[in-house]
């Protein structure tokens, strides 16, 4: 299983950045289309991986739902405060549009932290079983690609060269890999904590899908775009459901 943990933590960090840089080379028009398609698809996979995969698995391991749902609530609050803190850090002097003004270093630190937690999620999920690991990893890769593309845009906007932005972004994403390997061994020793980490991961997936991605999706109001979004959200749900349910996972 360690092989898969390492493999998917590389895919979820460096792999996502490579995909993001390909997007960047494709030109703005295609890039925008691909990104908005990926955002819809990611919304479906995040929700399904959390609700049908991580949460039921965590509840089954604990044998009782209350502890798991308390941790989920705590996790949602934690991510709420984290986002508040990030907004406050770069907005305290003037009212501002957060993403347009986030300075380069903050983007990189945020990215490093985000990828560090991705590593923990991947390790906890594979320690549960292969299907859950696969579902969590695919979800992470898919939502990392638009995220990294956005980070690229900010770094370039800050005046970095393409090469420098690429190198810095790769560097800030590598924490996924040591985080995944260390958590794999730590969580393997303290197996009883795995459901808690699954619940926190589920909280982060729900928070990202509902508080970050959904309002972004609702900004587009053209009929064609709405239909495209719905199809892609559904596709994300179906892909995850296939991995989780039909992929031989039995309860």
């Amino acid at each position, binding site marked *: 299983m360690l092989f898969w943990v390492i493999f998917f933590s590389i895919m979820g960090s460096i792999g996502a950045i490579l995909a993001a840089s390909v997007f960047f080379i494709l030109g703005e028009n295609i890039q925008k289309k691909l990104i908005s398609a990926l955002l819809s698809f990611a919304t479906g996979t995040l*929700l*399904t991986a959390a*609700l*049908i995969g991580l*949460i*039921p698995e965590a*509840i*089954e391991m604990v044998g009782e*739902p*209350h502890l798991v*749902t*308390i941790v*989920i*609530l705590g996790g*949602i*609050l934690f991510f*709420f*405060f984290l*986002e*508040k803190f990030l*907004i*406050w850090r770069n*907005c*305290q002097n003037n*009212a*501002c549009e*957060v993403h347009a003004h986030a300075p380069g270093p903050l983007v990189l630190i945020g990215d490093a932290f985000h990828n560090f937690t991705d590593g923990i999620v991947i390790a906890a999920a594979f320690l549960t079983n292969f299907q859950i690991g696969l579902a969590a990893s695919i979800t992470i890769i898919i939502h990392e690609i638009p995220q990294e593309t956005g980070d690229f845009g900010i770094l370039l906007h800050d005046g970095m060269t393409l090469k420098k932005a690429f190198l810095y972004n790769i560097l800030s994403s590598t924490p996924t890999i040591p985080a995944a390997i260390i958590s794999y061994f730590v969580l393997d020793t303290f197996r009883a904590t795995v459901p808690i980490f699954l619940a926190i991961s589920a909280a982060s997936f*729900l*928070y990202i899908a*509902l*508080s970050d991605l*959904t*309002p972004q999706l*609702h900004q587009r*109001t*053209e*009929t064609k775009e*709405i239909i495209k*979004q*719905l199809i892609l*959200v*559904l596709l994300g*749900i179906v892909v995850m459901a296939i991995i989780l349910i039909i992929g031989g996972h039995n*309860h």
Partner: protein
Amino acid sequence: MIFWVILFSILGSVGAIIIAFFFLSIGKKYQHKLVNCLVSYATGTLLAAASLGMIPTAIQKSGGQVQMVMSFFLGGILFFFILEKLVIWRHCHDETCEVTETATGQIILIGDAFHNFVDGIVIAAAFLLDFFIGITVSISVIAHEIPQEVGDLAILMDKNYSKKKAFIYNTLSGLSTIPAAIISYFVLDLASLSIPYVLAISASSFIYIALSDLTPELHKKVGFKYIIRQVLLIVAGIFTMVLIFVWKSLI
């Protein structure tokens, strides 16, 4: 139990509108402050009522059908996502627009009637499952209905409805909570096996409102003062729900 269902469906509809009307008549400055405070408080109560009460109770009463309950929860999220899309599309498909600014009076009233109808079902399902779940759900409904109705009344008055007319129309559309609650009470009492799943869908509406609608609104306020106030009020909302669960465990 039908007594409580009727009492709280009256408080959650007509009660909330009367309080909202009162808010509107005390002046813009206090009104904005009170509405902002209530939005934070409601975020806390909605999240806590769903994650600490409705979801674990639904899982337990379903006989441990975790994946089934969570599938209904996911279906609920998807339903509310599509519903919000439809509302946006109905008044935006000809041009890009800020939703609340162009919503017509009629759509506000129809949307409100539908929303309150759903509130009625939620209140009935919650009380049928457990008295204390019923109380937490009712408090959450009232807390998030007040700022909602303040917004609706303000839009109606903006659309040249007189104060009196706006109040009467809004009350009429809000009344749908009461028949919805009474009818669902008797229907669900007969089909009691479905109650955990109805509660799961209700929980998804709470989580959807808290994360996709209220959280982005809260994050728009960036001053340090606002952040502290928001955090305190969210915690107060959660604490209120926790107190009710403690009260339950003492009986």
